[in-house]
């Protein structure tokens, strides 16, 4: 019953979209097109993220993670999570499960939030795309300004959360 309740909205939504196509209802079709675009992205990236998470879980030992991106890792650790995040692709919600595995393996609070910041705003695979639409100057400036800002957010979050019982949960 509980599972059914969780799926009721998605099912109603999909039926309405289906009906829109059937009766050629323009607004519904447009919402359907948007949904399909996002859904394709999710279906493409999320399984990849989960494979990556699985491999990370099995291959990378906790001591290594703690040593390289844990609380004692300093600037090198921050650089490492930024590199990791900028090389990955996909929407930010795809980064949440990866943040969980990083946390489980001993990544520091600061580096978790720096990872999320870098993941959402700076993507090496996307940079040519950004330059194409917004120009080189804008893209470079935005990257250079954004980078220190979310490193600062990492420090802020750590300072705020360090003596609260912060944890990244598995849903």
């Amino acid at each position, binding site marked *: 019953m509980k599972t059914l309740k*969780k*799926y009721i*909205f*998605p099912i109603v*939504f999909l039926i309405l979209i289906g009906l829109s196509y059937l009766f050629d209802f323009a*607004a519904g079709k*447009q*919402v*359907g097109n*948007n*949904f399909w*675009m*996002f*859904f394709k*992205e*999710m279906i493409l990236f*999320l*399984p990849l993220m*989960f494979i990556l998470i699985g491999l990370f879980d099995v291959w990378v030992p906790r001591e290594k993670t703690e040593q390289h991106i844990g609380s004692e890792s300093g600037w090198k650790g921050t650089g490492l999570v930024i590199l990791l995040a900028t090389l990955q692709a*996909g*929407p*930010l*919600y795809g980064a*949440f*499960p990866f*943040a*969980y595995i990083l946390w489980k393996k001993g990544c520091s609070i600061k580096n978790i*939030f720096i990872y*999320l*910041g870098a993941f*959402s*705003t700076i*993507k090496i695979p*996307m940079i040519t*795309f*950004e330059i*194409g*639409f*917004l120009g080189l*100057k*804008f893209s470079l*400036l*935005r990257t250079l*300004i*954004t980078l220190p*800002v*979310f490193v*600062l*957010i990492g420090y*802020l*979050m750590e300072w*705020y*959360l360090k003596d609260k019982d*912060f944890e*990244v*949960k*598995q*849903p």
Partner: protein
Amino acid sequence: MFLKLLPVLIIMLALVSIVLFLIPNETLVKYMGEGSGIKGWVTAALIGSIALIPGFIAYPLCGILIDNGVAYSVIAVFITTLMMTGFLTLPVEAKFFGWKVSVIRNLVSLAAALFIGLIMGFFL
């Protein structure tokens, strides 16, 4: 973990699709375009914060806005909030970080986006 997240993700994507439909590009240009001043900033921050939109949608959209005369600083706010803050995505985020931390992360990111826009305004 994936299957547990699926219904929340679908609800989120459905809501984002509806919102995107309700806010056409012309409306964005009207509220963020030339001479919109502080109103443009507020619109960019508010609409940008509704959901987490990935770059491949955000960049072309912002390209259209720039061609229609929206200032670079406003675009910087819009693009940063689009990618970093999402109130519709909060339920997904909260499943990992808890509600309090998720709300704080989003609010701090919102402030950061305004700051980034301000600095961009000096250069462009």
